[in-house]
C-alpha cells in the first residue's frame, strides 16, 4: 500500500502529473517524431516502415542542400567573429565610459533583441532594395554580404548583453593593480580584462553562431536565389513535400544548435569564479 502524498510531493498528485505529462507531450512529441521519422524507411512520412540511415545519406549528397548548409555555416562563422568583436567592444564602451547619449545607445542596442523578427526582416529587405542594393553575382563569400550584415545587426547585441553581464562582476581594483604595477591601457586590457570576460566571449560567440545558423525570417527576406541558407532551403523542400530527407536535415540542424547552446550555457556559468573574490 502506498502512503498518501506528502505536502511537497507535487509529482504524486494526479492533476500535476497530468499537467506535466501534457506539457512534455506537446513540447517534445513533435521533436521526437521528427527525429524518429528521419530514420523511417519510407517515402511517405506517416507510417513506420523500418529503420534506415538512407535519408541522411541522401541529404548529405543533395547538391543544393549542401550548398545551403555551407552557406549557412560560412555566414554563421563570419557573423560570429564580427559579432563577438563588435559586441565585446560595445559592452566595454558602455561599461567603462560615461558619455552623452549613453542611455540612448543602450536602448538602441537592445532594439534588435526586442523588435519582432518579421519587422527586422522587412526593414532589411527595404534597406537592401532601396538604400544599399547588394550587387548580384559577387564571388563567394561576398554574395552572402547582405545576409551577413543583417545577421550581425541582430546577433551582436546578444553578445553585448552577455559580456556586460560578465563585466558587472569585474573588480576594478584588478585593473588598477595592473596599472599600479606598470601596465599601460592596452596591457591592462589584454592581461586583465580579456581573461575576465573570456567565458562570456565564448558564450556570446556560440550564441551568435546558433542565432545566425538557424535564422529563417530575416534571412528569408534578404536571401537571393543563389544565396539560399539551410533553413530557407528546408522551408522550400517542405513546401514541395515533407520527405524524410527534410527530417534528416532538420535533425542535423537541431543537433548542431542544441550542442552550441549547451556549450554557450556551460561557458556562461563557469563552475569556479574567483573574480569577485579577487
Amino acid at each position, binding site marked *: 500500500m502506498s502512503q498518501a502524498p506528502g505536502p511537497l510531493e507535487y509529482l504524486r498528485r494526479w492533476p500535476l502529473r497530468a499537467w506535466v505529462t501534457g506539457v512534455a507531450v506537446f513540447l517534445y512529441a513533435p521533436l521526437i517524431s521528427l527525429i524518429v521519422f528521419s530514420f523511417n524507411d519510407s517515402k511517405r512520412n506517416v507510417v513506420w516502415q523500418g529503420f534506415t540511415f538512407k535519408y541522411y545519406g541522401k541529404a548529405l549528397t543533395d547538391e543544393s542542400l549542401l550548398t545551403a548548409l555551407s552557406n549557412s555555416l560560412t555566414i554563421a562563422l563570419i557573423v560570429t567573429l564580427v559579432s563577438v568583436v563588435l559586441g565585446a567592444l560595445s559592452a566595454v564602451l558602455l561599461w567603462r565610459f560615461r558619455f552623452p547619449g549613453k542611455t540612448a545607445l543602450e536602448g538602441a542596442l537592445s532594439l534588435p533583441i526586442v523588435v519582432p523578427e518579421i519587422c527586422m526582416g522587412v526593414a532589411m529587405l527595404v534597406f537592401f532594395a532601396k538604400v544599399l542594393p547588394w550587387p548580384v553575382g559577387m564571388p563567394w563569400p561576398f554574395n552572402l554580404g547582405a545576409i551577413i550584415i543583417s545577421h550581425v545587426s541582430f546577433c551582436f547585441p546578444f553578445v553585448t548583453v552577455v559580456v556586460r553581464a560578465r563585466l558587472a562582476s569585474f573588480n576594478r581594483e*584588478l585593473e588598477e593593480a595592473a596599472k*599600479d*604595477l606598470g601596465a599601460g591601457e592596452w596591457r591592462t586590457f589584454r592581461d586583465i580584462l580579456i581573461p575576465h570576460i573570456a567565458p562570456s566571449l565564448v558564450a556570446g560567440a556560440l550564441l551568435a553562431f546558433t542565432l545566425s545558423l538557424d535564422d529563417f525570417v530575416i534571412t528569408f527576406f534578404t536571401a537571393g536565389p543563389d544565396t539560399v541558407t539551410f533553413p530557407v532551403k528546408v522551408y522550400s523542400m517542405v513546401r514541395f513535400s515533407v520527405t524524410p530527407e527534410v527530417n534528416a536535415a532538420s535533425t542535423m540542424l537541431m543537433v548542431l544548435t542544441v550542442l552550441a547552446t549547451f556549450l554557450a550555457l556551460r561557458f556562461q556559468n563557469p563552475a569556479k569564479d*574567483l573574480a569577485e573574490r579577487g
Partner: protein
Amino acid sequence: MAEPIITIENVTRRFGTLAAVDNVSLTVEEGEFFALLGPSGCGKTTLLRMLAGFDNPTEGRILIDGQDVNRIPPNKRPVNMVFQSYAVFPHMTVADNVRYGLNIAGVPRKEQDARVEEALSLVQLDGLGPRKPDQLSGGQRQRVALARALIMRPRVLLLDEPLSALDAKLRDQMRTELSTLQEKVGITFIMVTHDQDEALALATRCAVMNRGLLQQVATPNDLYEFPNSRFVADFIGTVNLFEGQLIVDEPDHAVIRSPELGAGIYFDHGVTGAKGATVWAAIRPEKIELKKRTEGDTAPKMDDTPEGNNVVPGIIRQEVYLGSESTYEVEIESGRRVKVTRSNLTRWDQEDFAIGEAVWLAWHACSPAMLQS
C-alpha cells in the same frame, strides 16, 4: 632633516560639491610607517588614491621625491599599492602575479625568477608559487598582494585598510608581521585605516582626518596624550570632555571653571587662549584616581594642585571588571557620569569600590589636556 619623500600641499579633491579631501597639507619622511586614520568616509582612500595616481587633486599638488606628480599616471609612479580587496589576478598563478610588474618592466627571466623567490620568502609564501589564488586563504592572498608590490622596490608602499578583511586572530598576527616586514625592507609605508588600535600599534606617525579635513599629525603617543581637538581626543581612545571657561591663564598655570564639573580644572602649564574663552578639558579615564569619601569629610588635595581644583565628589553607578583593570562610571553632582579606569594592582583591588559607594575623583595638574576646538 632630509627632504620629505612625500609632500602633500593644500590638496583638495571635490566630488561635485562634496570635498572628500579638503585642503590637506602634510609630509612623510623616508622610512616612516605613516598611518592615515579616520572614520569611514573621511577621505582616507581618496587621499591614498591620489598618491597612487588613480585620482587627481582638484586643487593643490603632490610631490614624490620633490617631483610634482600631478600629471604622472599610476604606471609611471615610484609607488605601489596593496588594495583593500588585494586585487590578486585570479587567472594567474601566485608566481605570475608576483612577477607581473617585473614582466612589464622587461626584467630578464632569470632575474625575475630569483626576485620572485625572494619576494615570496619575504612574505613567507615559499613554495606556493605554482598555486592559483583560489587555492589560497584570505591571509595568503594578502601576502601575494604584498609580495607583488614589494618586488617592485617602490619608494613608498601604499596600503588601503590592509587588515580589515582578516578575522581577528589573523589580524593580530599580520599586524606584527607588517611591522617586521617594514623594518626588514626599510621602505616607507603609508597605511589607511579606520581602526585606531591598528594605527597606534603600527605607525610611527599618524594623520587623523575627519570629513576631508586633516585634524592632527603626530606620533601615536602624542595623539593620545596631546590631542589638539575634541574630535581627536574622542576618536583616539576613551575620554571625559568638560566644557568650561578659561578664568586663569598665567605662563606656568591655567584654570578652567566648568559648571558641569562643579570644580576648577587646574593645569600646570599656560595656554595662549583668550581669557574667558570657552575651552574643553579632556581627561582620560585612567588618569583619574578614586578615593573613598564619607559624609562630611574634606576634599583630598592633590600635591601639585591648589585646593578646590581637580577634585570632585561622586557616587559609583557602574563597575565593569575586566581582569587587568576595572572601569567605573561615577555620577557627579551635575548628574554627568565620568568614566574612570583603575588598574587591578593586587588580587583584591577590584573589591576596593562597589556600586553605590561615595568617592572622590581626583587628578593631577599634568593629566588633563586643554582643547580649544
